[in-house]
């Protein structure tokens, strides 16, 4: 049921990577997952052609502005998790998808420019919240971070977001070879050849933590909406 929308009007921030990481981890956890690839570049559709996606997971492409909401509605009535990936521009599909989101994930690299574009997405979410008189939970996901150090830029961006009252995922997706290799091999992190990808177990651990945090947030959100809180 939960619709998870990856929204960030800037490209190259790891949106598709984090969407795939989450989708494959949820499928690995035994869930049925539909991925709606609403980016005209259809990176995820291409990914799904490299190797059969994990059992229970399907990827849909060829999504138009007029068709996106029907797709989301159809899939959320059919599967346990719907994940929507969007183009890294300011486009109408983003505002429409947000109207159905149970959780919006806003990936950013540790840079001021990425944070500025994330702010655009957050302003849009807040306007939709007012229009629909309904909370649209959202949080920023830091991507491509170094597993070893916190750069000065990273600390600055985190402080900036904190001050703006923006929620941030505790887990950051690190800059790991495994995440890049997903688009060369297809499948999930766990399907990658261990002998060819550097430090694969660390990437699996990272992917698992991210998925677990999303699930935890969703449980809190859904419980809150069930109890009307």
């Amino acid at each position, binding site marked *: *049921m*939960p*619709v998870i929308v990856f929204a960030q*009007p800037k490209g190259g921030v790891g949106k598709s990577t984090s969407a795939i990481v989450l989708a494959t*981890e*949820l499928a*690995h*956890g*035994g*869930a*049925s997952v539909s991925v709606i690839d609403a980016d*005209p570049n259809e990176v995820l559709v291409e990914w799904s052609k490299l190797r059969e996606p994990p*059992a*229970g997971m399907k990827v849909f492409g060829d999504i*138009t*502005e007029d068709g996106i*909401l029907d797709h*989301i*509605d159809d899939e*959320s*009535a*059919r*599967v*346990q*998790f719907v994940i929507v990936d969007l*183009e890294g*521009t*300011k*486009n*109408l*599909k*983003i*505002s*429409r998808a*947000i*109207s*159905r989101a149970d959780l919006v994930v806003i990936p950013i690299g540790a840079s001021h420019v990425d944070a500025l574009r994330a702010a*655009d997405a957050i*302003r*849009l979410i807040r*306007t*939709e919240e007012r*229009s*629909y008189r*309904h909370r649209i939970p959202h949080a920023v996901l830091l991507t491509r971070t170094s597993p070893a150090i916190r750069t000065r830029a990273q600390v600055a961006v985190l402080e900036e977001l904190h001050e703006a009252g923006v929620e941030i995922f505790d887990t950051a997706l690190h800059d790991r070879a495994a995440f890049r290799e997903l688009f060369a091999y297809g499948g999930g992190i766990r399907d990658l050849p261990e002998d060819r990808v550097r430090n694969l177990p660390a990437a699996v651990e990272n992917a*698992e*933590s991210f*998925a*677990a945090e999303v*699930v*935890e947030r*969703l*449980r809190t959100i*859904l419980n809150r909406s069930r109890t009307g809180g």
Partner: protein
Amino acid sequence: MSRRGKLGLGGLDDFEPKQSERRDTAAADQAGEAHGFRSREPARKERPTRKRGKSAFNAQINIRGREEDIALFQAVADERGIAYGRLFREMCSRLKADDSKR
């Protein structure tokens, strides 16, 4: 199917398929528009079906005249950007009006 501990004990069975709450698309579009999130698809403009009334200029005469008069007639029509039929009509009605003033 494998279930990993980190995703929660008992797996993910507590998440069930459910009809999502349908909300008015216009509000999302308005919010998008307000923040510069606009359509990226080519506008599908309905081609207006032009209903053209039947032209009244549907009779024809064939006039023999001097070449220079015909050239002048064509030049005047070109200068005014009007069809020969309309120029002919205007010329005739002006002459008629002049005659009646006399």
